[in-house]
């Protein structure tokens, strides 16, 4: 029995020898359960060992394997060859990020933005371990749980036209992460984060295109978090007019 093959087109770019990225075609053995990552592994192991791409967990939790698959931001481990039998399959590095090498994009800016929003619980009144755990009701958990499921894959940045136009914009995942901590009943750091929310680079850089939520592989719905952030920022705007701003 002869093995069915499928053609996979992969973006290549080796900065030390290529002036610009180009596309290279490979024939890989096809199986129904083969993911894009599996195809890339096959290429690297059998056809061209110089191919570079990021991956780790192979189970949609590490967030390393974001690529453009036929122009749509996807996780390579959660995307299967069987869904591209009729269309063909083209894999490129994530849109809106510089290319480092082949399918590896430079996500430094994204990571900096995630750090910038102070993504950790901030307390004004220090509590000691002896005080016990912070209790939370199911309702309090529901306020942020969905937003805490982000795996930092960056697909939403590749999808966001506003980030593509101007990468000063904090972007979907960072604003969602910020909102996640502001919504957490254990957190008291809202005042330290609100300046980012209120800025043009914050929630106001978003025009609610909504493609970020469409491509998110974890159902985080960053667009919803940002719209809630707009409501928060609007409230803060009104309050700042009624009451002199705290000194910070």
């Amino acid at each position, binding site marked *: 029995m002869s093995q069915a093959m499928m053609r996979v087109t992969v973006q290549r770019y080796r900065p030390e020898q290529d002036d610009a990225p180009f596309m290279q075609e490979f024939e890989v053995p096809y199986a129904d359960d083969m993911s894009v990552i599996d195809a890339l592994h096959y290429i690297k192991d059998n056809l061209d060992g110089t191919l570079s791409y990021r991956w780790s967990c192979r189970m949609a939790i590490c967030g390393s394997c974001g690529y453009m698959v036929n122009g749509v931001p996807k996780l390579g481990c959660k995307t299967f060859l069987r869904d591209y039998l009729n269309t063909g399959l083209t894999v490129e590095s994530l849109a809106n990020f510089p290319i480092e090498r082949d399918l590896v994009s430079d996500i430094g800016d994204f990571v*900096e933005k995630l*750090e*910038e929003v102070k993504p950790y619980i901030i307390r004004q009144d220090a509590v000691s371990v002896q005080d016990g755990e912070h209790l939370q009701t199911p309702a309090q958990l529901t306020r942020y749980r969905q937003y805490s499921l982000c795996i930092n894959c960056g697909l939403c940045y590749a999808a966001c*036209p506003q980030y593509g*136009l101007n990468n000063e914009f904090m972007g979907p995942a960072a604003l969602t992460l910020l909102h996640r901590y502001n919504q957490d009943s254990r957190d008291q750091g809202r005042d330290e984060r609100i*300046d*980012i929310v*209120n*800025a*043009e*680079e*914050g929630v*106001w850089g978003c*025009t609610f295109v909504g493609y970020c939520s469409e491509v998110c592989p974890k159902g985080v719905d960053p667009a919803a978090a940002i719209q809630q952030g*707009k409501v928060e*920022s*609007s409230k803060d*705007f*009104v309050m*700042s007019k009624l009451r002199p701003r705290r000194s910070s």
Partner: protein
Amino acid sequence: MSKHSKQYQRADEPIFWGLFGAGGVVAAFATPALILITGLLVPLGVLQLDYASVNAFASNWFGKLILIAVIAFPMWHACHRIYHAMHDLKVDVARGFFKVFWYGMAFVVTIAAGAYLIAI
């Protein structure tokens, strides 16, 4: 580290976003019906609207409030959308001028409509 010294400026978007949102609601519910009535059904003679009853509607405060709402809010909505669409289309020249121009247009229409309604 130096990243954290970045200064963020409060955007004035909440005002315009509020008007944009209000306009969106009005535009979704009332504008299509209004276009159908005033733009199609009346000119085609399917529907009769006589001057006296429209005038009576615009003469009491309830009618005036409804009219200013269906005129002004969608105007703010449209101007906000066009202003942002310019950026989407990479027309980023003279942002300040166009901001004044588009929001100014919505403002002028609002004031003019208000003045006309009060005068009725």
